């Protein structure tokens, strides 16, 4: 990001962590006193874990991630309706927000009163709000309902008025949580037009959405949150691809040990990284601490199987492209037979791999490749970090000579 630092920062999220104490809400005094006296530890939930993010003026940034990844919490913290447990957020310019599908309306007040209230919260003079009023109502398409209490509004009407007023107060920064999911097609189109107009006038837009196609089209950058951490930030296509491959992998992890070929003659019982220090086997994912991680595959064979072959494949998590694959047969490491429980270790030199996340699959099949005993699809995730910079996916061994003397 350092090359962009001369640009004006609109939103600066600095090492923000947010923990919720699950027992805080609506407690009785008795419960509070008892907790204090019994020194009961409140159950804590970390919604955001050390997230840092900079959004520049004029940028449109999308936030993607699974449900519960902390997207709405992050937006609420930027909108200052939540206070971070640690870290800080700075915004430069007026901020208008549509959090959880509402601008913060009071159900007993009419649409008109709520619009005026919202304007005054945004620090806009009543006279100016009255001038904008017709435009706001027209955009929301609520002319005939504007003097009804909003408690009688349908959810669509509520969102339309919320979006309309949040945009028309002309903020420098607009925060929108999932507005594209509601409203009919016509309203969605007008929302998109409005947001385009907003972006074209050099304003900053931060947007949560599950609509990956739209966000790829309109965002300059995308932030990907996973379990409260920033798991990716940058090019819309790359980051959404990574998000999708992660969610695909999570799904395949659940159903990964589907068997094919000869049923249950032999199957893997586990696939794991072997921690080089402790010897502990990690079965989910691992940061790559060394350049030559060791994988341990354990199996169980119901009967004696002669000369089986163990194979592996490495896919890039973003593009899904196969990086490398091989097996014991190709490596000339023949396994005479397996019977009962057994295991094998595989060491791979990953020093040539680019920084990124790689997904491993394993297979167990016969020498002639005709019988597949078991296949573990997308079962392990390897995270490669700390590389000297190079371009592309792999670092090939190179050597330079010269400069050569001028040819005559």
């Amino acid at each position, binding site marked *: 990001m350092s090359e962009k630092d001369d640009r004006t920062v609109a939103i600066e999220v600095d090492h923000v962590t947010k923990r919720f104490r699950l027992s805080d809400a609506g407690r009785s005094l*008795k419960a509070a006193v008892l907790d204090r006296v019994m020194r009961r530890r409140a159950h804590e939930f970390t919604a955001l874990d050390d997230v840092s993010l900079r959004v520049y003026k004029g940028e449109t940034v999308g936030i993607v991630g699974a449900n519960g990844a902390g997207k709405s919490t992050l937006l609420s913290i930027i909108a200052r309706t939540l206070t971070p447990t640690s870290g800080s957020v700075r915004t430069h310019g007026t901020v208008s927000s549509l959090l959880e599908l509402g*601008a913060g309306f009071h159900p007993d007040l009419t649409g008109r009163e709520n619009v005026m209230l919202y304007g005054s919260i945004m620090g806009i003079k009543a006279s100016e709000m009255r001038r904008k009023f017709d435009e706001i109502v027209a955009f929301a398409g609520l002319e005939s309902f504007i003097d009804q209490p909003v408690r009688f509004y349908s959810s669509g009407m509520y969102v339309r008025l919320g979006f309309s007023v949040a945009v028309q107060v002309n903020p420098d920064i607009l925060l929108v949580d999932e507005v594209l999911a509601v409203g009919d097609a016509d309203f969605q189109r007008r929302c998109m037009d409005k947001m385009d107009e907003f972006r074209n006038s050099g304003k900053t837009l931060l947007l949560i959405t599950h609509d990956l196609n739209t966000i790829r089209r309109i965002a300059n950058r995308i932030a990907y949150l996973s379990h409260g951490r920033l798991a990716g930030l940058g090019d819309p296509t790359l980051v959404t691809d990574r998000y999708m491959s992660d969610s695909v992998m999570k799904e395949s992890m659940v159903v990964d040990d589907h068997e094919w070929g000869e049923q249950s003659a032999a199957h893997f019982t586990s696939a794991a990284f072997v921690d080089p220090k402790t010897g502990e086997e990690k079965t989910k994912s691992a940061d790559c601490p060394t350049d030559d991680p060791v994988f341990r595959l354990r199996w169980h064979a119901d009967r004696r199987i002669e000369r089986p072959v163990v194979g592996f494949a490495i896919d890039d998590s973003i593009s899904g492209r196969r990086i490398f694959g091989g097996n014991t047969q190709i490596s000339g490491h023949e396994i005479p037979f397996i019977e009962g429980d057994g295991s094998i270790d595989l060491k791979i030199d990953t020093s040539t791999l680019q920084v990124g996340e790689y997904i491993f699959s394993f297979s167990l099949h016969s020498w002639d490749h005709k019988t597949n005993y078991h296949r573990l699809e997308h079962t392990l995730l390897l995270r490669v970090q700390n590389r000297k910079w190079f371009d592309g996916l792999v670092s090939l061994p190179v050597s330079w000579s010269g400069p050569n003397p001028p040819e005559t």
Partner: protein
Amino acid sequence: MLEDWNKRGDLVRILVARNLKIRYKGSALGFFWSLLTPALTILMYAIFAHILKFNNGQPRYLEYLVGGIIIWGFTAGAMNDALFCIVGNANLVKKVYFPRLILPLTTALASGVNFLLTFVPLVLYLALDGGLDLSRGYWLVPAFVFQLALCTGICCFIGTANVFFRDAQHIVGVGQLAWFFLTPVFYYPEMQIAAFPAPDPLKFLVFLNPMTGVLAMYRRGLMGLELIPREWAAAVPASSVWLSGLVCLAALAAGLAALNAGNRKFGDVL
């Protein structure tokens, strides 16, 4: 918490108006109730006082009592509204940022505006009955300012407390009744001072109850009553009423501190 106040004028005005509107929401007479309720209250006391003869032989007891009840009504009303000044605006607090002080402040202001309206029938009644003495009317200014400060502090404190502990509403109900009996609303200050368990030089500490001083100032301004009853004037200096004023300001400071402390977690809990 105090940034951008120059831009917040409209918001304060709109929220005060909203609080008043919601108070009489759906009622046919609307704002007239602010005038009608105290007028009917006065009438009620006048009728029953006449029938039951409960004036204790004191001259102008009825005026004294009705004035006290209407002035107390400002504080009591603020206390009741305070409970829901933040909880009742959860939808706003969760979705937009603005200085949270606005909510208790506008609740106290709305209670104050309502009080000023109820003041009209009170003054009329006193004028008709001959009890009105505005020659020291300037006392009404510090009386109102201190009471407003007190009510703002109460709203901050109770509003914040009710976010975290829903027991607050029950405690407030009982506490309000106790405070009412500890305050010379329906009895005379000389009874309060006499009953106060302290030697004479320390009797001035009855003014630690902020409403004791506030009521004394109002009654001085409206009816020309002494700040300190004659029989205690030697033991308790008149300047003791400022002790109540100080307590009002202290209540405001305490309320602001409570609000500031709770503010960080409003979004989590609501």
